[in-house]
């Protein structure tokens, strides 16, 4: 009953100055629109840029590093208190870079509930032979299905069918840069030499474009079996295990755990790509800061309009108080005015923000380095909308708070006597 009365009075005061009210609401609408659009666009961009690297980066990579043995022979000798051993120029001994018990590790990982999937890989240096020239490169032997499922391999195959890598024997998917340099078309055959001197002809079944030029200029993909054949190794030869986790945040502790458990080297994505995390979080921070600044500016607009309204309506406030409205009632009236500006403006902003981001989402954005991206990237995240709603209500509340308090403190005697 009383709330209804207060809402009624607030509404009448609002409508009496509807033009000013509209401008205040438009200010909020504009800032919420920009806030939503900015954040959606910025995080879309962040995701795209992170995806460029992180989508294809395993959360944990298991491998065998080439390094000197920590247990040198001298340490086996009895240690005396008065001596200390210095060993100069330690070299790693000749070691194989394969993961020894890869089959056991894979089956152990598949049992682990935290692991989303495992993709084995062989990375090896090779030469592409073109006429008399040898161009250095890297061949990644991959499990096509696992690689595609976990690391979106097929998104980056820009020509040819990625499954041909499995279905056609001795096939290769070339990096786009390599293919351009060697002037090879799909269906052509390329000669590849390993660093041990073995040579194998491979049939080109597709091109691959990652968006990172350096990678595209040197890397190519074969199936694991083809790579093992190329290297003359047995079919259990694996150099890397790429692990994708259900929760990427678990990667650092799990990497340590696997290192101890399997006796191999492990590196987690956070350690390997620390700079991407930093970049993303700073970009988000900037967009939040800009959005919030916009809202605060809109808040000042509301503050001004309410202040003017209170000066204009001094008489009305005085008479309301004289006829029995308490300071709290007057406060509630002006707070409701501020909040309704905020809520109406904010709701409009949410809609327009959604609209504007949808429009941006339709704008073509073609770039050679990003084959999977056709339009500007936008992320529709409900969190942005929730934050925008909360902020529009909170800022308008504070913008309304001080003018309302001033109105509630108006002394009716001074105004009535002043006439």
């Amino acid at each position, binding site marked *: *009953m*009383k709330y209804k*009365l207060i809402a009624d*009075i607030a509404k*009448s*005061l609002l*409508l*009496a100055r509807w033009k000013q009210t509209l401008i205040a609401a438009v200010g909020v609408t504009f800032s919420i629109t920009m806030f939503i659009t900015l954040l959606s666009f910025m995080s879309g961009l962040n995701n795209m840029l992170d995806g460029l690297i992180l989508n294809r980066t395993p959360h944990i990579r298991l491998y065998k590093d080439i390094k000197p043995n920590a247990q040198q022979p001298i340490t086996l000798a009895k240690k005396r208190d008065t001596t200390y051993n210095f060993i100069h120029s330690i070299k790693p001994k000749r070691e194989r870079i394969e993961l020894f018990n890869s089959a056991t590790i894979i089956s152990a990982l598949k049992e682990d509930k935290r692991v989303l999937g495992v993709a084995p890989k062989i990375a090896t240096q090779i030469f592409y032979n073109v006429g008399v020239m040898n161009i250095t490169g890297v061949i990644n032997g991959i499990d096509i299905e696992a690689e595609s499922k976990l690391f979106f391999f097929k998104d980056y195959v820009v020509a040819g069918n990625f499954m041909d890598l499995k279905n056609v024997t001795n096939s290769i998917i070339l990096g786009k840069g390599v293919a351009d340099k060697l002037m090879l078309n799909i269906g052509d055959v390329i000669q590849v030499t390993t660093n041990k001197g073995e040579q194998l002809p491979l049939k080109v079944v597709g091109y691959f474009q990652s968006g990172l030029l350096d990678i595209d200029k040197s890397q190519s993909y074969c199936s694991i079996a083809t790579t093992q054949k190329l290297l003359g190794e047995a079919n259990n030869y694996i150099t890397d295990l790429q692990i994708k986790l259900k929760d990427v945040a678990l990667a650092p502790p799990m990497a340590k755990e696997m290192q101890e458990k399997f006796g191999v080297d492990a590196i987690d994505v956070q350690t390997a790509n620390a700079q991407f995390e930093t970049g993303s979080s700073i970009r988000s921070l900037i967009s939040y800061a800009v959005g919030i600044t916009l809202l605060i500016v809109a808040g000042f607009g509301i503050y001004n309009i309410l202040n003017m309204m209170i000066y204009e309506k001094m*008489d*009305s406030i*005085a*008479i*309301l*108080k*004289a*006829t*029995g*409205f*308490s*300071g*709290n*009632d007057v406060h509630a009236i002006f707070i409701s005015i501020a909040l309704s500006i905020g809520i109406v403006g904010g709701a409009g902003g949410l809609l327009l923000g959604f609209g504007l981001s949808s429009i941006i989402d339709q704008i073509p954005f073609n770039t050679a380095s990003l084959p999977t991206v056709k339009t500007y990237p936008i992320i529709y995240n409900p969190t942005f909308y929730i934050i925008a709603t909360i902020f529009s209500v909170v800022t308008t509340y504070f913008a309304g708070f001080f003018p309302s308090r001033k109105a509630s403190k108006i*002394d*009716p*005697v001074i105004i*009535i*006597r002043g*006439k």
Partner: protein
Amino acid sequence: MSAIVLEAKHINKSFHDPITIPVLKDISFQLRESEFVSIIGKSGCGKSTLLYILSTMDTDFEGELLINNQSVVGETDAALALIRNQHIGFVFQFHYLLNEFSVLKNVMLPGLKLGQYSAAEVEHRAYEKLRILGIEKEALKKPNQLSGGQKQRVAIARALINDPLLIMGDEPTGNLDKKNSAIVFDIFKELAASYKQTLLIVTHDNEFAANTQRIIEMEDGKIIN
């Protein structure tokens, strides 16, 4: 003997800015039910100041004030607002109607605030008050479409809406011409005679005062008669 509606006991008030000037000195008087009282005095004698103290809007004074046999000294803002809402009706020199609302709504507002009756009943009562004052035809107009005399009558209707113990007027005819003044005065007289309404009116119009039941004359912050 009828009940005491309002009692002032030894009220003193001073303005402190820039130097302390006493405005009211030891004011004591009683107001009984259905009395029609006017306060007169020269400009600056403190009669308006006294009225605002009596109305509970000005709480900065010394002494004691009882409304309906209850002390109002030291009450909270909300409690005083309720007292004003329930027991006191105001008519000022200026009408102070809200132009955003219709005449009817202006009259209804204090009634809606009190919440004693439903909205429909308050509306019915508001119509009744307007009829008593002869302006029920203007009920749905906006205040700025009315003449000065009509506006003042609407203000009186607003003061009556909660059936207050007491109506206070601060120069209610001050802004009106002779004819309208006479109408407003007749309304007050009618209210006192037919409805046993207690009225306390501050005026400097001696002719107006002469027609009331009792005159309180003030000079230099004191009651002299």
